[in-house]
């Protein structure tokens, strides 16, 4: 087990400091920065049990699964706010929130695949908020808060997925080799490197 007394969020990715020598595996910033895969924003599909729409937003409840071109998310409740100018692609998502079900002990689960690296990031959190980046048509962030756990599956470097506990993590989405980018704050990581 490796305890990371502090990790700092940098633009280049999650920079892990204070790493014990026993954890001399793949904890570099670049690794957690993931990326090197070009993913574009695309259609999103939401599967739900209960649904309400009020004209400017909709709420999907009950084992909601959200699938987009860039990530997959499972939650108890997802609220999507719609707005902006309608065009060929329709009005866009101005914000989306996801909640777990505390009474049932379930959290929001977000999965992000780095197809080129063959890595998979999974985030478990009480809440998640998606906001598009108005300056980048294909950009946006997913902000995880509340008992955040990040699991990194990297078969080429880790014997089993690493587990990082964080207070707060942000996944930046976009097109190009630098995305998805993952920024986090204080936390601790458990790593099991390959021999």
């Amino acid at each position, binding site marked *: 087990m490796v305890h990371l007394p502090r990790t700092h969020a940098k633009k280049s990715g999650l920079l892990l400091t204070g790493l014990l020598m026993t954890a001399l595996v793949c904890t570099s910033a670049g690794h957690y920065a993931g990326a090197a895969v070009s993913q574009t924003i695309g259609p999103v599909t939401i599967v739900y049990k209960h649904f309400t729409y009020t004209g400017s937003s*909709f709420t999907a409840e009950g084992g909601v699964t959200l699938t987009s071109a860039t990530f997959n998310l499972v939650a108890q409740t997802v609220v999507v706010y719609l707005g902006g100018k309608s065009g060929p692609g329709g009005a*866009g998502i101005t914000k989306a929130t996801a909640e777990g079900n505390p009474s049932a002990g379930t959290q929001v689960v977000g999965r992000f695949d780095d197809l080129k690296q063959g890595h998979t990031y999974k985030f478990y959190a009480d809440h998640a908020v998606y906001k598009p980046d108005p300056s980048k048509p294909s950009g946006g962030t997913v902000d995880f808060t509340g008992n955040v756990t990040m699991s990194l599956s990297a078969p080429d470097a880790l014997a089993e997925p690493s587990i990082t506990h964080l207070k707060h993590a942000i996944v930046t989405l976009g097109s190009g080799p630098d995305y998805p980018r993952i920024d986090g704050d204080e936390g601790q990581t458990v790593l099991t490197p390959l021999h």
Partner: protein
Amino acid sequence: MHTLLSILSKLNRSSHRQHTAARLFLAFTTLTVSNSIASAAPLVVHPLSSLASAKPHQAVGFNKNDAGSTGNLEVTNSNIYAVQPDPKRPGKFMWKIWASGFTLLNPGKQITVNVQNMSALLFQAGQAAATLHAPRATYDNIQHTIVASGGVNVRSISEPGTTLRADNVVFYAATGKLKATGHVVYHNGKTLMELHTNELDGDTKLKTLSSNSGGSVALPKGL
């Protein structure tokens, strides 16, 4: 014409206990149809030939069904244009329908109209809210419902490009609500959101929706 007037006369007599009048226009004949439902609003039925079409009224067939003993009556016709005035909003309507054929049943306490190949203009709070097309439909003046079936298409007027398609759609005229069941597909003209489910409730404008039967939503301009 003699037969027509005779039947219409029986229809009139068969429900003389009523409190509110429904007017029926058939073959350019005006008839006051009684019914015993105090809350029922007048139902006005016109033959299509009385509209813009200059063609004479098509063949009319009337089938009496126990009219003498029970007051029940069945009337069939080939074309129909009917409007339902809104009892709460004078001068406003709840719906207008056009259909290529209909059967009118008047079993004493209610009027049920079965229509084929119906096009309807649906109102919500006195305002035209949507159009509806269906191979078959039934109107019930007690429930104030139009039950459309056989593959129904609804198009919102206030929400351009917003449509609803389903096997069956019930329009609750008194509340301005719709209930769609069976292979429901909702398409929003602004967001291009498309919803698939088996059961969907909404307002007639298709601006507010709810579903408890599970399903999926697709947003083309996604994440």
